[in-house]
């Protein structure tokens, strides 16, 4: 039962990652691509972490998975901000203000 | 087809690609990167040699050798990159 729920969560998370990758490949502009990546991959990571936490054996492992999710989410948000800032400063992507 | 066969072939392929890049690329940074690819390929072969079928634990001595190799490779890469930076600065001042 728990394995079924974890499998559903991980599969849904993978779907979000696929959506983010399709956005990365198909969107025309760096800002659109960043939007697809940070939103879809963030949600996909949360779902996969939730599924992995359901399958984890000990509370220590669950705590580590939550820590990993927290730091990867913060790091990816920071990197998204840095990439967008660099793109805006170097004038790429249509010159949005 | 066991994992060690798949990853052993991968390691040889990566080593070959790195060797071609190290000898045939024109740019200095690319050649240093290709040598790092060679080192990762060699690491694959060592770890594949240490792998045993799943109930048994792998042989720890090649793991220690690969860890040592990774640290030595980062030291060599750092020296190579410092030399590349210095060469670039000297060439730029020579042109002026």
């Amino acid at each position, binding site marked *: 039962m728990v394995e079924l729920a974890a499998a559903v969560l991980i599969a849904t998370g993978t779907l979000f990652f696929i959506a983010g990758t399709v956005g990365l490949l198909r969107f025309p502009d760096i800002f659109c691509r960043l939007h697809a990546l940070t939103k879809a991959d963030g949600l996909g990571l949360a779902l996969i972490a939730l599924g992995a936490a359901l399958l984890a054996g000990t509370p220590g492992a669950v705590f580590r998975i939550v820590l990993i999710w927290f*730091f990867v989410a*913060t*790091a990816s948000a*920071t990197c998204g*901000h*840095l990439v967008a800032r660099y793109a805006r400063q170097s004038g*790429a992507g249509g010159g949005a203000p | *087809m066991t*994992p060690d066969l*798949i*990853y052993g072939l*991968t390691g*040889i392929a*990566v080593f*070959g*690609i*790195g*060797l*071609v890049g190290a*000898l045939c*690329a*024109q*740019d*200095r*940074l*690319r050649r*240093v*990167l*290709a040598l790092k*690819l060679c*080192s*990762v390929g060699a*690491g694959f*072969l060592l*770890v594949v*040699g240490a792998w*045993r079928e*799943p109930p048994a*634990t792998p042989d*720890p001595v090649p*793991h*220690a050798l*690969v*860890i*040592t190799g*990774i*640290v*030595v490779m*980062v030291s*060599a*890469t*750092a*020296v190579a*990159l*410092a030399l*590349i*930076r210095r060469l*670039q*600065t000297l060439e*730029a001042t020579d042109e002026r």
Partner: protein
Amino acid sequence: MTDPLMIFDLLLALAIVALAVASLSVRDLFSMIVLFIIFGLLSALAWVRLSAPDVALAEAAIGTGVTGALLLKTLHHLRYVSGTLGQQTALGVTPVAPVPMGIILANAGFCGLITLGLLVAFLGAPATGPGFDALVAEAMPQSGVEHPVTGVLLNFRAYDTLMEVVVLLAAVIAVWQIERGLSDAPAPVMGEVWQGFARLALPAIVVVGTYLLWVGAEAPGGAFQGGAVLAAVGLLLLLTRAYIPQPAHRGVARGAFVLGTAAFALVAILVAGGGRVAFEYPLEHAKTLILLIEGVVTLSIAVTLAALFHGREPVALSEGGRHDT
């Protein structure tokens, strides 16, 4: 393992080879480094599949993380010196006298022959050899730790590990000789979001690095992995310009570089009293000695890797500096 994981193995192997080819064929140098970092992460994943978690940790932290940071910093410096910082793509500099295509093809042919020879040797080798696992397993109770790789690294083959620390020391000595003084390349301005992230991440990095060092006695981890994670603290401080290396701090830096090698060598020689050879730790003190060596070596590795990233000796060059001919 079971069949579905074999499909995963095949896909991962294909991705690794494709990334290796791609990283050497793109024109833009920045893309090349990014593809190399992804290649490193995927090969760390492959090493987890091969039951080598310590090697995977070391590759992800040192081989991909620190090497990627070194490459990016070098690329920034190269673009600054060649004046191409403002351009969108980072193209390499072709040498004045490029190698003729015939020689390149001959080189590629020889590399192909070498790879073919390796392939024949690999496929013809016996599937499993005797290996060292039986010997290590029966000697582990005497090593003082429970994790086999740590026992091999710091007890059974401690001489190799001492030489590895010496190689790091030699690298920082060489880099400090090659590049001296203050760099002219402008530091990238990182912004407030990055500063906030660094403030959040820095204590966590210290805790994770110390944990990796401590847990190496009974689980995958150890001095090199912990030292590389702690080097990230140094990299963060250098990137946010919270610490700018001063000429006055060189003595402390030199002490930190030598500390690991000196402590390791001292412990190894001093246990050779009382009828033992060097590197033969007494059985009841083995765990303490190993932890002591690991702690000091971790500190030394962290400072050395951060100094390799900074890449220059912080020397105040004199006003009318001599020009090398």
